């Protein structure tokens, strides 16, 4: 009622406890910021949209995997993915991603852990690692980061207790946003250097609006493990476009694995939300991840950022209608129109890639030499990275509709040219 409205307006926060960098437990932060904490906890909700959200599938817990609920398997939705990833852990288990609350357990128990020994590096994006890193590094974040990368996943796992929490995004005294992930600091530094900006320090230079995107870009990005020390690196030294990242991987001659059926040295793209978003009109217009995924909401008399991070399609009035006057249903249809178009091309590109893989495999079994297969295999490497760049990106093209379609068109061209090449060589 109004009387309260007027009061609340005066004191948005309650200062109950002292918060420090060592305060990992979000419940403690919640004493000062009950609204944000309550929303934060709601990331356990599982609701499905046409291409996003997630479905809550019950399963019988096992020794190896005590989870009683998981998200739907993407491999079952589209078995072609198993062929694309043949010989790589992803062909064993790959699920639709769900809310932040699950990030630590989903990483701990994915079957991908059982088929390969994963490094401690993995932990960077699936747990609150700021405190643990500082501890390990004796106050030196980078040292702690390097130590954790060098561990086995099992050992690193013992160092952490929570999924991403308040302390990973907020400076406890001022509540200002901050970057806590060395991988992102170094990635941005390399990117800016390629644009002629020296010694870029994100925590010093980034604007508040940029930070509303960067805190997310600490994890929602393409990455690889560099060298034997398994350093977490974001491949941005030549730029953020798929073409530029592939050029980088080609230059450093990186491959994620050798394809089991074709023998091609291939790459796995992973959740390049930040990179794709950067090619879109919203990024260009200064719209941040948080504007759509953590929109302001009115609580009593003041506005807070909705810490229930989720699909904006479940929250269109707050997420979109601040800027777009169209009715909710119309806005939903606009998103679906973009996503359906992307999905159509994604399937065209997928069929083309599978055809190429089958052809190379056949040629191989018929004794084609590596020399002869070199070119077709490079076409597969290209086609596969371009396709996966959109497939692994989680907005089904919405973050940059035309760019997503361009990338898929290029992928089709690479796959089909590979097939032609193969036939002409013979």
């Amino acid at each position, binding site marked *: 009622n*109004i009387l309260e409205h007027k009061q609340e307006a005066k004191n948005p926060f309650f200062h109950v406890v002292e918060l420090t960098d060592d305060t990992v437990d979000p419940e403690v932060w919640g004493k000062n910021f009950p609204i944000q904490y309550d929303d934060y906890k709601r990331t356990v909700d599982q609701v499905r949209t046409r291409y996003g959200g997630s479905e809550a599938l019950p399963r019988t817990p096992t020794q190896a995997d005590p989870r009683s609920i998981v998200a739907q398997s993407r491999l079952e939705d589209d078995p072609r993915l198993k062929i694309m990833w043949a010989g790589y852990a992803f062909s064993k288990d790959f699920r639709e991603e769900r809310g932040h609350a699950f990030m630590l357990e989903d990483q701990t128990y994915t079957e991908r852990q059982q088929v390969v020994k994963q490094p401690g590096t993995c932990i960077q994006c699936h747990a609150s690692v700021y405190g643990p890193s500082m501890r390990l590094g004796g106050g030196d974040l980078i040292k702690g980061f390097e130590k954790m990368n060098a561990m086995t996943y099992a050992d690193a796992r013992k160092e952490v207790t929570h999924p991403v929490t308040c302390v990973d995004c907020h400076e406890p005294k001022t509540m200002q946003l901050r970057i806590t992930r060395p991988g992102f600091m170094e990635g941005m530094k390399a990117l800016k250097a390629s644009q002629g900006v020296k010694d870029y320090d994100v925590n010093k230079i980034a604007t508040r609006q940029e930070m509303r995107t960067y805190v997310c870009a600490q994890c929602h990005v393409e990455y690889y493990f560099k060298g034997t020390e398994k350093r977490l690196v974001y491949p941005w030294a030549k730029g953020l476009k798929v073409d530029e990242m592939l050029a980088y991987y080609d230059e450093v001659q990186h491959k994620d694995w050798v394809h089991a059926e074709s023998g091609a040295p291939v790459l796995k793209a992973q959740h390049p939300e930040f990179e794709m978003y950067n090619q879109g009109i919203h990024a260009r217009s200064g719209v941040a991840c948080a504007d759509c995924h953590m929109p302001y909401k009115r609580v009593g008399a003041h506005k807070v950022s909705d810490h229930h991070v989720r699909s904006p399609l479940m929250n269109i009035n707050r997420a979109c209608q601040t800027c777009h006057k169209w009715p909710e249903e119309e806005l939903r249809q606009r998103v679906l129109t973009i996503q359906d178009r992307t999905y159509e091309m994604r399937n065209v590109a997928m069929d083309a890639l599978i055809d190429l893989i089958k052809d190379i495999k056949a040629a191989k079994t018929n004794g084609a030499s590596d020399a002869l297969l070199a070119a077709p295999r490079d076409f597969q490497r290209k086609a596969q990275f371009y396709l996966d760049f959109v497939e692994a990106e989680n907005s089904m093209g919405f973050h940059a509709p035309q760019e997503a379609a361009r990338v898929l068109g290029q992928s089709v061209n690479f796959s089909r040219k590979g097939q032609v090449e193969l036939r002409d060589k013979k």
Partner: protein
Amino acid sequence: MKASVAKGTLIGVAVGVAMGVAGYTFLYAKGASYLTNDPKACANCHVMNDYYDGWIKSSHRSVAVCNDCHAPHNLAAKYLVKADNGFWHSLKFTTGRYPDNLHMRRINRKVTEEACLYCHQEVVSQIAPTPHTKENMTSCIRCHGAVGHPQK
């Protein structure tokens, strides 16, 4: 028959209660502001603050107040619409049942479109409304939605 009577009384009660609550708000929140022309009065409701802040920076701050665009320019209608808005907004404000991002109802859209013409009919006399069909008039808001307050 019975049903509709029951329904009738229900609505009656509902409106009665609403009137009570809204009436209380109306006074407390200086709802009477709906009857003045002072933009600050609109801003009595924090809900309206964004618009007030926007208006302060708008091309119209010195030439048009809220009511110039949001209330009809003929007296009778003016107080009707204001009472209507005053009532609904007060009620919704109290119950808190309104979206974070507001949308003008159709009747208010029409009021605003006509407000534009009230002041600008000469400038647009060639383009709208076309002499013959008034309902086919061009919407001004379509292009000038931000004149009163930059769309947040």
